[in-house]
């Protein structure tokens, strides 16, 4: 009897220690008002379901997330869960800073079961050495949002006159632009300037070019394609027809205001959620529409803007328990993918969601889906950010300094080659 009591007490103690262990998970993400509301509610529900788990959600400005997460990890003090854009994740995987997906915690048998739930290619940017490291918070491609009123102001019919090719875009820009002397008071369109791998590289790819050769050893594949794109940007910039340049205010924020400053902008499905928050009247009106990413008239590839994802990842330096509960919480968030779509306009590429009436009934969701089907994933490389910066230097040179595109291309080629050859 005594022995039985002792064993029982021992088991009770172990059980209390195991089940009663408090876990605190730190989750870093980027700002998005609508998503913050949703995730705060999901956290409350999760904490109520599992009282031993506390989740601390910290949000930062999207632009600064990369630097902040990097700095925290370099000091071995990274958050337990974080999300970053696919181009930024490669270094975390190759340096062993994030843990592979815990299928058991997600209630799945294996990798195949997970991949089966999502659309094809979803996990390509977060697969390294045969293991999957992230779960998509969203998968995004960019199309063109048009302010129909401003089209009509210029005597155009948005339904038929919208830009189908990049050449159309130049012709339309001339009709839509408004200036006071040299100063632009109404911009026809704004490229997403700092995000050259998502918006500019696909334009080069349409013409058969690429950033590196297929064997990955030589910079600037198909110089003719690059030259054509650099010439296009030179014509768009202040040394050409002066339709805008990278120093003007970020367009997608201005576009939501519907104040006549900008006619078209390049952004994702998520913009609708932000538009609803920023300007409900404009959102509910029939004064806007979305059209596909244009192609060049002589394009050899009919691809849209590159698609990229925001992926949730788990810190490999967190304790095993924290990692397990982190994956459980990520699983809880992905189980609410419908709410992410309905409330925040974020699309998690889950097959059942893409086939749902909810997705199909969303304004212009078909435009995004059709463009996505023919698009490439964003270029991923350990030094991708550096390369994107160098493309930016070339674009600024032709648009702002009036540098000859051939000269800018020579410099770009040398810069990218140096990055490829640098074995640091």
């Amino acid at each position, binding site marked *: 009897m005594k022995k039985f009591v002792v064993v029982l007490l021992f088991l009770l103690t172990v059980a209390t220690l195991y089940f009663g262990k408090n876990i605190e998970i730190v989750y870093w993400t980027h700002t998005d008002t609508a998503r913050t509301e949703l995730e705060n509610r999901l956290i409350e529900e999760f904490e109520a379901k599992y009282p031993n788990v506390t989740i601390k959600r910290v949000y930062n400005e999207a*632009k600064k997330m990369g*630097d902040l997460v*990097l*700095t925290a*990890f*370099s000091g071995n003090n990274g958050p337990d869960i974080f999300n970053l854009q696919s181009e930024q994740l490669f*270094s*975390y995987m190759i*340096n*062993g*800073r994030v843990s592979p997906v815990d299928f058991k915690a997600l209630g799945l048998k294996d990798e195949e079961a997970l991949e089966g739930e999502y659309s094809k290619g979803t996990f390509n940017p977060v697969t390294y050495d045969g293991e999957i490291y992230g779960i998509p918070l969203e998968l995004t491609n960019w199309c063109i949002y048009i302010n129909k009123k401003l089209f009509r102001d210029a005597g155009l019919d948005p339904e038929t006159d919208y830009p189908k090719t990049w050449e159309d875009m130049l012709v339309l820009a001339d009709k839509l632009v408004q*200036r*006071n*002397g*040299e*100063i*632009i*008071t109404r911009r026809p369109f704004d490229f997403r*300037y*700092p995000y050259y791998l998502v918006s500019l590289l696909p334009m080069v790819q349409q013409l058969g070019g690429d950033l590196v050769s297929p064997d990955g050893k030589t910079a600037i594949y198909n110089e003719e394609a690059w030259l054509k794109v650099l010439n296009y940007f030179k014509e768009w910039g*202040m040394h050409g027809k002066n339709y805008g*340049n*990278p*120093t*003007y*205010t970020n367009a997608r924020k201005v576009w939501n205001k519907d104040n006549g400053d900008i006619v078209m902008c390049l952004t994702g499905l998520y913009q609708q959620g932000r538009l609803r928050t920023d300007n409900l009247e404009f959102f509910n009106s029939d004064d806007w529409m979305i059209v596909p990413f244009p192609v060049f008239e002589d394009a050899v590839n009919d691809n849209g803007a590159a698609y990229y994802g925001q992926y949730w990842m788990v810190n490999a330096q967190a304790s095993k328990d924290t990692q397990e509960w982190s994956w459980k919480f990520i699983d809880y968030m992905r189980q609410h993918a419908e709410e992410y779509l309905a409330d925040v306009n974020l699309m998690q590429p889950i097959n059942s969601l893409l086939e749902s009436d909810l997705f199909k009934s969303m304004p212009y969701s078909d435009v995004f889906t059709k463009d996505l089907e023919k698009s490439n994933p964003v270029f991923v490389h350990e*030094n991708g*950010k*550096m390369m994107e*910066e160098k493309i*930016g*230097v070339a674009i*600024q*040179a032709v648009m*702002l*300094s009036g540098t000859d595109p051939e000269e800018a291309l020579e410099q770009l080629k040398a810069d990218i080659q140096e990055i490829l050859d640098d074995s*640091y």
Partner: protein
Amino acid sequence: MARKRKFGMEHNKAKWGFIFVLPSLVFFAIFSFYPIFNAFYLSLHKKNLLSLRPPQFIGFDNYEYLFHSSDFWNSVLATTIFALGTFIPLLVISLLLAALIMTRRRFQKFFQMAFYSPAVLSSVVAAVIWLLVFDPRGLGNQFLNTLFNSPGVDHKWLATDSMLRFSTMLVYFWKYIGYFTIIFIAGMSSIPSQLHEAAYIDGANRWQGFWRVTFPLLKPTVLLVSVMSMIQCLKTFSTQYLFTQAGTPSKPINVITMNIYNTAIRDHRIGRASAMSVLLFVVMLFFTALQIKSSKSDDVSFM
């Protein structure tokens, strides 16, 4: 016996002095000395910021790379242009402003406060304000176009290389002019008024009074301000960083501090970034040593 007591008192004073200084020493050791030594150490190693592997010793390879890097030399050029273009006007105009304010009988405190106020703003806020001013539809173009009666001209504050450099200098000049003016005012106030009175009795006018009396006696302050402003200009970062974040070309304003930041944070090459920091540190150390040496040889006594 008396000597022994004196020694005891001195010892006691020194002990308490050390106790009072200790917190600052600990603070500096952790937040200044350790990072400096760590930067020296890392500058001799190859280390990826995200890698969990220990740094790999590579000797002076990082320095050798920098001396062959066009990007590094572009940063040296950008820093030199910025430092010279900002420090000379800062020095000259703050001296003139101080002299002007000192001649005012009324509103002296108001002018001091008005000129100094931008210095209390954070550099980030200052850069954001000026980004609005330099917007093509902002106050910068409006002001110049009204002044020169040239409606619709875009002065391309943030676009062309030369205007962009000028814009960053202007922000810095605006922010620090009041700070250095106050230092000159303090220097001028310490000059005994009898010296000026004697000069005026001897027939000197105000102009001569300034150049023959005030200016020579201000030499240590001039030196202090020039070295301080030069070091301040070499450390410039936030204006250039925020401007490039807003879409301006990076090459003309890619100063060394920004290159250090990008090399470490964007490119993850902390060893190379540390090597650049060490080189910048050496340059600043040279200016500081120069200041200390010159201030000793140029000590002014009013006795």
